[in-house]
């Protein structure tokens, strides 16, 4: 047991580390720390330890494809290495972890550049949830001097939208904050809906912050385009073999605090953290490899899995 590793697992589970990318980066760091500090005596023992920790990281946030992809890519390298000395294996895990982090950061910059091309001067954008990839696009938009107005939903129950509003306003772009329920009232003023993703399934369905699917349905109804900004490390390989992406539920106290709950006998709380936006509501997914229609998710996954 390494205290720092345990701490990362705890934070991921408790959503103290929240975003899809931050979660993946944290899981890479956990394995990297393990590589440095493991007290394993043999390569085999170390390998077992890495796999074990990898599984615990996945269990801490089962819906996160980026985390899963991150630890799986490290495990794959460990397995491919075969019989090597313990010290080599340690180095390999560390190198593999830092490569994945680099991949995330590069992808985000690239998505920012590619995505920004889709935004025109004068556009009004609506975003939901908190996505560092969406922020990367808006940062580029602001740098290019385009005048863009952004509607931001508050995103109950965690109210992450406030953070999004703050970050966008710091880019110098004007922001209008609204409640999640008000999206349909304003949709006719919007040119593009732009959201991030927690995971992307093989059919191009996008798992994102609860409410994203409603926003996309409203946009579809009003013939407003919905763009998803996501690095390819968000693609979920498990869905190729028919696995469903698990939708986690959060703490009920996010919706009702304990005092109110105690008063409300018989009242249950359901708090799904994500929902699934069907591919027919998505116009394009902006990845670091280019813009694809949601139907292109399958092809990208195949290419990714084939190495």
């Amino acid at each position, binding site marked *: 047991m390494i205290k720092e590793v345990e701490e990362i697992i705890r934070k991921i589970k408790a959503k103290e580390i929240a975003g899809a990318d931050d979660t993946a980066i944290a899981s890479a760091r956990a394995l990297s720390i393990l590589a440095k500090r493991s007290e394993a005596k043999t390569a085999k023992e170390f390998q077992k330890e890495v796999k074990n920790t990898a599984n615990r990281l996945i269990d801490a946030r089962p819906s996160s494809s980026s985390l899963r992809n991150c630890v799986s890519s490290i495990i794959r390298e460990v397995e491919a290495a075969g019989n090597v000395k313990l010290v080599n294996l340690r180095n390999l895990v560390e190198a593999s972890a830092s490569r994945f982090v680099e991949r995330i950061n590069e992808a985000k910059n690239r998505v920012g550049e590619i995505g920004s091309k889709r935004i025109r001067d004068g556009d009004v954008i609506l975003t939901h949830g908190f996505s560092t990839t969406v922020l990367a696009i808006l940062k580029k938009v602001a740098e290019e001097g385009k005048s863009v107005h952004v509607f931001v939903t508050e995103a109950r129950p965690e109210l992450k939208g406030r953070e999004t509003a703050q970050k966008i306003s710091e880019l110098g772009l004007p922001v*209008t904050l609204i409640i999640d329920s008000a999206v349909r*009232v304003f949709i006719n003023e919007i040119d593009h809906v732009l959201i991030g993703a927690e995971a992307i399934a093989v059919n191009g369905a996008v798992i994102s912050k609860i409410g994203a699917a409603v926003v996309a349905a409203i946009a579809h109804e009003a013939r407003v385009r919905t763009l998803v900004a996501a690095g390819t490390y968000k693609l979920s390989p498990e869905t190729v073999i028919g696995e469903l992406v698990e939708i986690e539920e959060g703490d009920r106290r996010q919706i009702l605090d304990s005092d109110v709950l105690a008063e*409300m006998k018989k009242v249950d709380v359901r708090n799904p953290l994500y929902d699934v936006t069907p591919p027919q509501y998505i116009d394009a997914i902006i990845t670091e490899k280019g813009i694809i229609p949601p139907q292109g998710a399958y092809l990208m996954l195949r290419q990714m899995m084939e190495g």
Partner: protein
Amino acid sequence: MHALPEKVEEITQDIKTMKIRGAGKIARAAVGALKIAAEASKAETINDFIDEMDFAAKSLLQTRPTAVSLPNGVRFVMGRLIRAKNVVSSVNDLRKHATNAADEFIENSRMAVQRIGEFGAKRIKDGDVILTHCHSSAVVAIIKKAWEQGKRIRVYSTETRPRFQGRITAKTLGEAGIPVAMIVDSAARHFMNEVDKVIVGADAIAANGAVVNKIGTSMVALAAHEAGVLFFVAAETYKFSPETMVGELIVLEERASSEIISPERLKTMENVGVRNPSFDITPAEYIDLIITEKGIIPPQGAISILQEIYGYFSF
């Protein structure tokens, strides 16, 4: 210049300051005030009586300009007076028409929620899963009635930002023993496949069957429509808006940003504004039925309800 009787003035103030609130209560209070005005009038001619009543009516209409139930209550009484004006022989006869009309409106309004409960419960089947948004006493009446009839139902109640009226709904139903799960407004679509019927209340209903209700209703309706789930509106007939028959649009009130985010927090965010519309409009094509105390109608029937009550415009 007319003066309002003291009691009428007091009721007018209570409506204005929101001491009296809720669509039904406002309407009943305003109509009650008209009855008091009729009883207190010392007018000697029919025209003077009408003038005095008209003054009281206008004072009441100015209290909450966006409410639909209040002007409808006032219109119910005043419409009756105008129509009776040419057939009565004395001020006292006319006064009787006014007080009768007021009594009838108040009684109807009280009975309406109960009738809606009875009509609506017939549309609920054993085992149904119901989703509701915000808090509506008519919706609660339907769900409670169905439960009393022994139908094993369960309910999803959205919390209803920004003011969380969904918590009142959840608490009320929970206390009646009905299993209820609270969800965020955004999760309505996520659970829609489990739902058999969505039932919501209304703040106003337009002549074309469009329903004005708490912000978020139209997106719940969209999610229901998309999933092929039935969408019912429960509303007393005094929520139908006659102005919309002549093409007026219903004004959507927008409230303070402090309902969404604290002024202190907002102040730290440069370039950030807040929009806070309180209502939205659900188009008629997403609505399957409107349950009123006069019976169940399709949204296309809104115009016939309006015509039945108000006829064509006379004042």
